[in-house]
């Protein structure tokens, strides 16, 4: 690929990315009421999408040799720590440290 072709490719990635982010706002502008189903989706999607993102983060680990075992242990730890202390930053840091320990020393 020449430099010009690389610049064109990057520009296309930029445009396509912006398109995926802006399309809902273009289709349903502020001055018009969105269809009932879209308003309904807006209320149920946050939880659903974050669930989908957790699976998205685990997508490669599922097919690795340990099939997500270290990830699941760390997630269980996060769950217990979060139930116990209820501190978001502590749960994230604790879970990450446990995971790093697991993949570096155990698995």
């Amino acid at each position, binding site marked *: 690929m020449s430099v010009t072709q690389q610049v064109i490719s*990057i520009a296309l990635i930029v445009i396509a990315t912006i398109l995926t982010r802006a399309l809902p706002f273009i289709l349903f502008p502020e001055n018009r009421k969105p269809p009932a189903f879209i308003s*309904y989706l807006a209320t149920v999607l946050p939880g*659903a999408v*974050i*669930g*989908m993102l957790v*699976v*998205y983060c685990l997508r490669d680990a599922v097919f690795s040799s340990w099939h997500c075992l270290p990830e699941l242990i*760390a997630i269980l730890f996060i769950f217990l720590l*979060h139930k116990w202390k209820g501190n978001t930053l502590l749960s994230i840091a604790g879970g990450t440290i446990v995971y790093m320990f697991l993949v570096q020393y155990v698995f």
Partner: protein
Amino acid sequence: MNIKSDRKIWKAFKEAFPHTLPICAGFLFLGMSYGFLMKSRGFGTLYPLFMSIFIFAGSMEFVAVNLLLSAFNPLYVFLLTLMVNARHLFYGIAMLDRYRGLGWKKPYLIFGLCDETFAVNCTTTVPQDTDRGWFMFAVTLLNQCYWVTGTLAGSLLGNILTFNTEGLDFVMTALFTVMLINQWEENRNHRPVIAALAVSFLSLLIAGPDIFLIPSMILIVIYFAVASNKEIAV
């Protein structure tokens, strides 16, 4: 800028900063890996810098490394980007209301709507005394600054972390997991979350890690179409 609005902006950034701390760790680390990867493939610093500023979609930037080294195929690049980033459509729908009426900040908020920014802006209750628009603007801008800084450091300095970083990228999974727990506790209706988890996992097993998000999204919309019909009927 008068003193009052200066204070409002400062307050929003101060309020937003702790929410972005895990993302700071994750983005500096992942950004550095990305910058380093680009450098090792022979790209000058301007490439990862401009890509991080203008694309600002981590997973797509990693995909782009190989794209830029293969034969020129603009249509493929465009369609692949739409596919990899299709999940953003859900973020936009979920944020239609929250980003309403924010004037000049709105275009940037939409431009910077990455996974992590979405997760924070969508789940955080902004304190009463803090300006909502500036808070979400601060989250978006801080996150992008972390990503661009990480990229730049990785490209200029290479791998400067001297400790064993294996597993550090789990900070993103941990972030989404905690947000999932918070969402679960805040909402009485758990069906959307259970349905999304089940459908995504099933799609992953059937379609594989590269394209499973597309079938998951379609199935989630179908599920909600059926569910909303039932709720309206009841």
